[in-house]
């Protein structure tokens, strides 16, 4: 099993250096910026878009929308300027792949950004990055300047008539800013509220055509151009899948980290291979396949192929492929409470189901966990989680996912809380859930 994963040649992480990012020279020695030079000389933007469409690349930020189709959303007659927003907000709990990627090979991300800019004929990229990644924001600013000096960014790139530059836009927090329409508002200096029915490809930043793409998605573009669409599809382990995937594994495993593997690698191989198996004394109870807005999945899905379609087939979502591993000693009611506290705090408060419903769910879970639960809480949770689908944006349905997963697969654990009138897994010390200590 280890053999199978180690045989595989990394695409996004191939320039990995110990403890430091790859330099421009190192990136170029491995074929870096060749795709850009080739595209500017030999390919029209339409051809680049077609190649990315043919490659089957799906967005790596969580929604999995086909990248080529997103780019094709800009109408042919759409005006200029157009914008690209590389999204490195990455606030989905459990997800840290973009931070690792930017730190391993900043120029791979930059070349992907420039190529995407060329493909959609954008004039500027607003690189959106969260405050806890300030060191990475500085890294990208520094390396973008290196790329500018080398003629890859700025006016008339490599002597062509394509001009394109990059600005790093620092965020000041808030989960919702990772959502494309909220992100566009945030960049323009408005509150990061999502905008329903706004097509970014026609009416984005400053009402101009705008493409918001995750950093990992963009990093896939140079290899696709260099090696072709068929090659990219061939990287996948699954029929119908395409490319490699950065899997972030965290929780009760021996080697938490970010691993590049063919997309569709079964969970078993990821956990037992690079992640080094469960911690001593820990058994797999549940995992979340792709961040906090995907449902808990029980151990029966241990062999599920970690790709968009196989997970959809069993009623789940790949999300960001941030695999969070829970063991038998972790109470999933308490874990759901933690997640809902997170969502309740991060809700922008704009619409009622999200603003009012999440605190309601939090209260029910809190009482369950404290041993004050009642049988009727179960249908109440079910109903409230159902109401989350009536919200303005995708935030609340995502927040409902852990609750629905808990109800679907771990009803026994909920009932134990009811029958024992306490958390069956509570440690000797009562679990604190408030932020104020009893001083």
């Amino acid at each position, binding site marked *: 099993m280890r053999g199978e994963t180690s045989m595989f040649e990394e695409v996004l992480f191939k320039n990995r250096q110990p403890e430091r990012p790859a330099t421009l020279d190192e990136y170029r020695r491995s074929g870096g910026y060749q795709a850009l030079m080739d595209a500017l000389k030999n390919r029209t933007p339409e051809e680049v878009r077609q190649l990315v469409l043919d490659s089957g690349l799906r967005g790596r930020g969580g929604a999995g929308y086909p990248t080529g189709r997103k780019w094709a959303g800009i109408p042919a007659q759409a005006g200029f300027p157009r914008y690209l927003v590389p999204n490195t907000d990455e606030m989905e709990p459990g997800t*840290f792949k973009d931070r690792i990627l930017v730190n391993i090979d900043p120029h791979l991300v930059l070349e992907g950004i420039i190529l995407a800019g060329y493909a959609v004929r954008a004039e500027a990229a607003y690189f959106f990055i969260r405050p806890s990644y300030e060191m990475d924001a500085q890294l990208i600013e520094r390396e973008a300047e290196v790329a500018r000096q080398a003629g890859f960014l700025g006016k008339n790139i490599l002597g062509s008539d394509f001009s394109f530059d990059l600005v790093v836009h620092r965020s000041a927090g808030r989960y919702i800013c990772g959502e494309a329409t909220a992100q566009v508002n945030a960049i323009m200096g408005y509150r990061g509220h999502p905008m329903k029915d706004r097509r970014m490809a026609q009416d984005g930043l*400053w009402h101009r055509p705008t493409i918001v793409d995750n950093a990992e998605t963009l990093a896939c573009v140079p290899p696709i151009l260099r090696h072709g669409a068929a090659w990219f599809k061939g990287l996948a382990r699954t029929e119908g899948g395409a490319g490699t995937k950065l899997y972030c594994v965290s929780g009760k495993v021996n080697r938490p980290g970010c691993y590049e593997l063919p997309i569709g690698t079964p969970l078993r191989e990821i956990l037992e291979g690079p992640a080094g198996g469960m911690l001593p004394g820990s058994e797999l109870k549940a995992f979340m396949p792709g961040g906090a807005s995907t449902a808990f999945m029980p151990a029966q899905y241990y062999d599920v192929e970690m790709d968009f379609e196989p997970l959809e087939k069993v009623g789940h979502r790949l999300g960001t492929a941030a695999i969070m591993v829970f063991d038998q000693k972790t109470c999933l009611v308490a874990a759901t409470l933690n997640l809902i506290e*997170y969502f309740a705090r*991060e809700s922008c408060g704009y619409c009622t189901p999200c603003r009012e419903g999440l605190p309601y769910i939090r209260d029910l879970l809190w009482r369950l966990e404290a041993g004050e639960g009642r049988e009727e809480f179960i249908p109440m949770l079910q109903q409230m989680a159902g109401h989350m689908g009536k919200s303005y944006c995708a935030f609340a349905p995502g927040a409902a996912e852990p609750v629905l997963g808990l109800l679907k697969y771990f009803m026994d654990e909920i009932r134990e809380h009811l029958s024992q009138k306490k958390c069956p897994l509570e440690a000797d010390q009562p679990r604190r859930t408030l932020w104020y200590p009893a*001083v």
Partner: protein
Amino acid sequence: MVPAELRESLETEIAAAPHPREQAINVMYAFQRHYGYLSDEALVEAAELLGLTPLELEELATFYDFIYRQPVGKFVIHVCDGVVCWMFHENSIFDYLCKKLRVCAGEISADGLFTVLPTACIGFCDRAPAMLINGKMYGPLTPEGIDEILESLKTEYCEMVICK
């Protein structure tokens, strides 16, 4: 008033940006670094620089958790309470810091040095449990490790990364 030099450099940056309002967060960070937090006075001054009303900027300032509208300590500790960090300590890191520093969330420790805030997943789940101090990541944390970190911050120079 901020020093003329800082004011001029901000004016230059705002003027150079194709869309001045896009600079709102950068300007708030700069004022926060100067004053220690985004005071009422700073908010009015920053809004004026950006050509916004104080209310328009207040809308943004109160939206973001890395903009501090109240005084904070010299070091702001953002403790990750994401679910991965949680599964290793179940909020005890946060409680430990609050007890040790004798503060509640958002307060300043008696020596003026520390403020502790709960924070959404900071993206260091491979180093869980983790926290940020003035933008620098520390993890995986243990109570002993935290004691050492706090002691060293009291005595050693610490470069301010961003937030203050």
